[in-house]
């Protein structure tokens, strides 16, 4: 995930200070890796440097003053451009699952067993996510749904590969020879 774009996205709802941004990020993207405070402030510094965000207020608190950041007009345009542009669909096939299968087949391993074990692990994770979707908050359900569809695609690929395995293995055997 692009952290600067995600932070710009959160700022579009109004100025925020770093603590609020971190908290809102972790709420809106619940199954993503939580954002570290240091990462929030480093990102805000870069956005400010590039003219995409600006300091709008210094709020007094119990401790040091809290700096509130808002979106600039340039930041708004940058955000609109980012949202409006399609992401390149799968530009690189660099998935670990794919790499591991090729390595397993090159080494003469039982590809069917690898696929069975991986499918079982995927379905176990899908069961966890289905439970999250059932009882979680709306943002969690949304994130779980996204993950479920992607895991399903992985397993579909595993199933198809399993059916193609005999011819794949023969081709790799020829390459090895």
């Amino acid at each position: 995930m692009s952290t600067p774009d995600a932070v710009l996205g959160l700022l579009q709802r109004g100025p925020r200070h770093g603590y609020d941004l971190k908290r809102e990020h972790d709420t809106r993207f619940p199954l993503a890796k939580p954002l570290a405070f240091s990462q929030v402030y480093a990102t805000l510094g870069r956005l400010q440097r590039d003219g995409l965000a600006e300091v709008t207020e210094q709020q007094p608190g119990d401790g040091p003053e809290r700096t509130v950041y808002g979106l600039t007009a340039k930041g708004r345009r940058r955000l609109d451009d980012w949202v409006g542009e399609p992401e390149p669909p799968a530009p690189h096939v660099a998935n670990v699952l794919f790499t591991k299968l090729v390595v397993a087949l090159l080494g003469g391993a039982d590809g069917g067993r690898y696929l069975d074990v991986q499918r079982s692990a995927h379905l176990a994770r899908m069961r966890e996510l289905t439970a999250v979707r059932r009882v979680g908050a709306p943002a969690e359900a949304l994130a779980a749904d996204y993950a479920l569809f992607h895991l399903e695609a992985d397993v579909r690929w595993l199933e198809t590969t399993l059916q193609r395995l005999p011819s794949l293995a023969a081709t790799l055997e020829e390459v090895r020879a």
Partner: protein
Amino acid sequence: MTALLEARRLVKSFGATPALRGVDLTVEAGEVVAVLGASGSGKSTLLHCLAGLTRPDAGEVHLDGTRLDTATDRERTRLRRTAIGVVFQYGQLVPELTAQENVALPLLLGRRGKQEALAAAKTWLDRLGVGEQRDQRPGQLSGGQQQRVALARALVTEPRLVVADEPTGALDSIAAEQVMELLSGVARASGTTVVLVTHDLRVASYADREVVLRDGVVSGAGVLA
């Protein structure tokens, strides 16, 4: 846990084509199990053998102490009216009957009184969120509503086992999700055992575990998450 359903070395062929080539499967009471596999892997044949709809060529099927594969047709019919609920992909509701009459049908065939059967049907239709549609015929219902009615019909006898063959196969993602929420929710609340065949992995993720068939044999099985 106790095994409610047990299949031992099931073999079934259709002509020269083998569908099951020695399937062993044990399902504990209260479990929800998904049977996965490519087209032609034998999953529907397995389900039909487990429900007593098809006799295997060899092997045994035990349901809660009763041997299904050698039971008489009359005994198997009795079990399907009392102990086994069946759901198919397209509901297979009787088009001339209302939703309530469709759900009451298994009870009426089991010689229960009409008023009692209709009252039980209404309770299940309400529970599955289609109570307001009880006077409508299947043709007037959406696919998701029809499948809920089919689910109510499978559950109205309070069976120990529900077998479902692609129960969401004709539904879109959202309707499929709603049907699975209801099926798995009711099963867990009532301790009903469910064996369902599906090609949809998100549907399978509602199960406690999956069994994968490949070329008529069990290929891989997951464990309780």
